[in-house]
């Protein structure tokens, strides 16, 4: 399955509010992307929010699944992104 399809599954899990399923789908998305030869050497999701947030300003993309499961505030942020895209 390609990265686009895996991303769809990730978004469906996000919209359903299922952190564990979203994390697993994101891992598969990352794996598919690697197989397609996409992504930089150390892709990192960054943001410009202050330290008042519980999530880090720089999260290596391969750590996003763990962060989704362990950090509800980060999950909410990623859910907003998924909702806006849909």
């Amino acid at each position, binding site marked *: 399955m390609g990265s686009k399809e895996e*991303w769809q599954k990730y978004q469906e899990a996000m919209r359903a509010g299922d952190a564990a399923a979203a994390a697993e789908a994101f891992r598969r998305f990352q794996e598919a992307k690697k197989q397609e030869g996409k992504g930089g050497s*150390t892709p990192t999701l*960054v943001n410009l929010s202050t330290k*008042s947030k519980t999530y880090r300003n720089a999260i290596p993309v391969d750590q996003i699944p763990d962060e989704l499961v362990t950090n509800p505030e980060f999950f909410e942020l990623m859910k*907003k*992104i998924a909702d806006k895209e849909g």
Partner: protein
Amino acid sequence: MPSTVCIADFDLPTRSASGFMLRHVVPRLEPIHLFSILARRFPFQLSAPQSDIIIGMGHGDVDTFTGQNEAVILDAGRYNPREVRGKVIKLLSCQTGVELGPDLVKNGCAVFMGYTDDYLWVMDADLASRPWADEMAATCLMPVMDGINALLDGKTAREAFDIELEGYGRNAAVEEDELIKSCLKFNRSNAVLLGDPMARIRARPRIKLPLPPPPLILPIS
């Protein structure tokens, strides 16, 4: 009239964005830049009242814009209106469009451009020592630089804002990485323009890009 450019540079996101600012915006402006350790409240207080444009990049919250090491630069309701009156203000920061932006407009700034939620992008952490070479980050950050350069060309705030939005749309249409594409759409949907959309500043001289990379890049502490 000079400009005030306040650019933090102390962690991965500020390093990435400051690299693009240094490469694509700063060379067009007068040599008074609040960069890195100078991105603090006191130098800002001295520089801002004399400027026609304030360009800021740093961490932010609904009511706060910060500089180096999150030193507060602008806090809603806690600054002298003289610092912002009549100015065109662009802040590349998270959430400042929620409370700080409206407060700036209420206190007389001509126009404010910022974001109502987190500003996110994907960067290559291995390129922190030459951030302008990061093509993943460029996908999100170049529309911001293009918008700022449109302001510096003398275009209206509305025109500059539209250039940034079009940049996100154009890049999203061709982006193959779904995560980067979703960041582009998210940032686009959160961009706001408050105040007078016809506000503009004196045009600065155009420069031919690309310039050679700026010389000063220190390790992130």
